[in-house]
């Protein structure tokens, strides 16, 4: 499978702030990639660079075989609406729908119409006055109706109600079925979107914490919980991503293969173990502290 997007050791600094630090990953063509991580982990920065709206301080990005920055033919193949997208003064929905086809060669009016109807985006209200969810809806309309070979969706769920989220999923997968494309989607709503992704990249403080096929990434990730001593015995000296201890109870998120002997031992020690969900894993990578003892608020007598 060829790669639609290749990110090679990309570093991006803003003044003294290092937003991305030697980030590398690839997105195979027609993949749906979940770009995950905490706020400020670098998701929007890497998306802007992939979209050719920003340049890396060092490193290289290839989109469909080209550096996207200032490369018009590549930019025409990319759709990217940032989560805090600004629109020209006094814009209304119809302004957006009228101009977008001029920039998106594959624009499809039916998709746009079905989505604007489904999301119930008010046509007459100035965009400035729309709610967060309505802004997200417009971004989704632009993202999906463009039918761009490279579609980047930045926090598409912000403010969307449950019906709108379902519509978004349905439309995304339905239209993908007709016109396959490479999709990168960043979100905090992991539980709801996890099943969409065949690949995931987890960013943490500007670096790649995890990158790969979602099934592979999750194959060896576990959550165990039980008494402190029992869990400690099971884990032994293997690395732990996150440990949460409250009183005598501990739960850990770890990433190592679990052999049958360990499983049997776990049963005897009354330690519950379950495959970690994508959400567990992202939360574990995001906790800067592997050992957390509940919350660190000083108790007062």
């Amino acid at each position, binding site marked *: 499978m060829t790669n639609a997007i290749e990110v090679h050791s990309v570093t991006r600094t803003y003044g003294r702030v290092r937003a991305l630090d030697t980030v590398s990953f690839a997105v195979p063509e027609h993949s749906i990639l979940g770009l995950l991580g905490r706020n400020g982990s670098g998701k929007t920065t890497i998306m802007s660079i992939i979209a050719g709206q920003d340049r890396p301080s060092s490193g290289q990005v290839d989109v469909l075989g080209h550096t996207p920055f200032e490369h018009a033919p590549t930019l025409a193949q990319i759709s990217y609406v940032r989560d805090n997208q600004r629109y020209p003064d006094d814009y209304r929905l119809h302004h957006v729908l*009228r101009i977008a086809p001029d920039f998106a060669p594959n624009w499809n009016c039916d998709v746009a119409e079905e989505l604007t109807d489904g999301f119930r985006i008010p046509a007459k209200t100035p965009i400035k006055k729309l709610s967060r969810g309505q802004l997200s809806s417009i971004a989704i309309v632009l993202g999906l109706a463009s039918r761009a070979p490279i579609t980047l969706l930045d926090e598409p769920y912000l403010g969307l109600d449950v019906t709108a989220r379902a519509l978004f999923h349905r439309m995304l997968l339905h239209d993908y079925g007709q016109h396959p494309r490479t999709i990168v989607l960043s979100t905090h709503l992991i539980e709801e979107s996890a099943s969409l992704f065949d690949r995931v990249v987890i960013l943490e403080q500007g670096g790649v914490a995890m990158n790969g096929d979602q099934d592979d990434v999750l194959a060896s990730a576990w959550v165990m919980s039980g008494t402190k001593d029992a869990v400690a015995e099971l884990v032994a000296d293997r690395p732990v991503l996150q440990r949460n201890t409250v009183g005598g109870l501990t739960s850990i998120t770890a990433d190592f293969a679990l052999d049958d002997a360990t499983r049997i031992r776990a049963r005897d020690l009354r330690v519950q173990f379950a495959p970690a969900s994508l959400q567990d894993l992202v939360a574990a990578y995001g906790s800067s502290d592997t050992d957390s003892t509940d919350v660190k608020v000083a108790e007062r007598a």
Partner: protein
Amino acid sequence: MISTTKLHFNKRELTLVVPLYITGMVAVISILISVLFWRGGSLPGTTGWIQGSQSNPGILYALVGFLVYLGVQSVATTFPFALTLGATRRGFAAGTLLWSVTVSAYLALAFAALTIIEIATDHWFAGFYIFDIYVLGAGDLGLLLPIVFLGVLSMLTIGGVFGASWMRFGARGPQLIGMSTAIVLVIALIVMIPAAEDIIAAFELWWLAVAAAVVIVVSAIGTWLLLRSASVR
């Protein structure tokens, strides 16, 4: 590039209708002022009347504010959206310039048409001088067309470069440009002031046209240079 130009024209009302609307408003105000003088005893058609109303450049000043705003917004709020749509920075700068040129030509022609009507109708049948005024060449279309065209284009591109500086440096950008322009002007004055009398004596109208052209070219290049390295937020 053409797409960017279309993007600017997407707001048809703002770029095409509003300037005429403002022109109309100012025309009405000019007429009211004329009526005021009339009631005050000045008679339409007398030399004093004609000179007085031909010296009133209100029509031009009224548009300056709006045109600079139009120029600023053409970059400041449209640029991030243009990048989102997939425009290159190069294409955006070129498309914006093309749009500015088109708007300037449009206004120049609109003013010419109105001036022709004004003169043909003997100043709106009542001796009102709105377009047939000194700053617009006093009815000479050969002067009016370049004056309006270059004037509008300078306003739009100056607005554009201020908008671009804001994109590039944030709030400090416009201050930076304002300050450096002021410094350059003051230095130019310091250099030229000893010869001021000779310069003023030798003044020709085309100097202004050259100055406007320089402003336009510098602003357009400045816009492109600033946008090239601006990061979108």
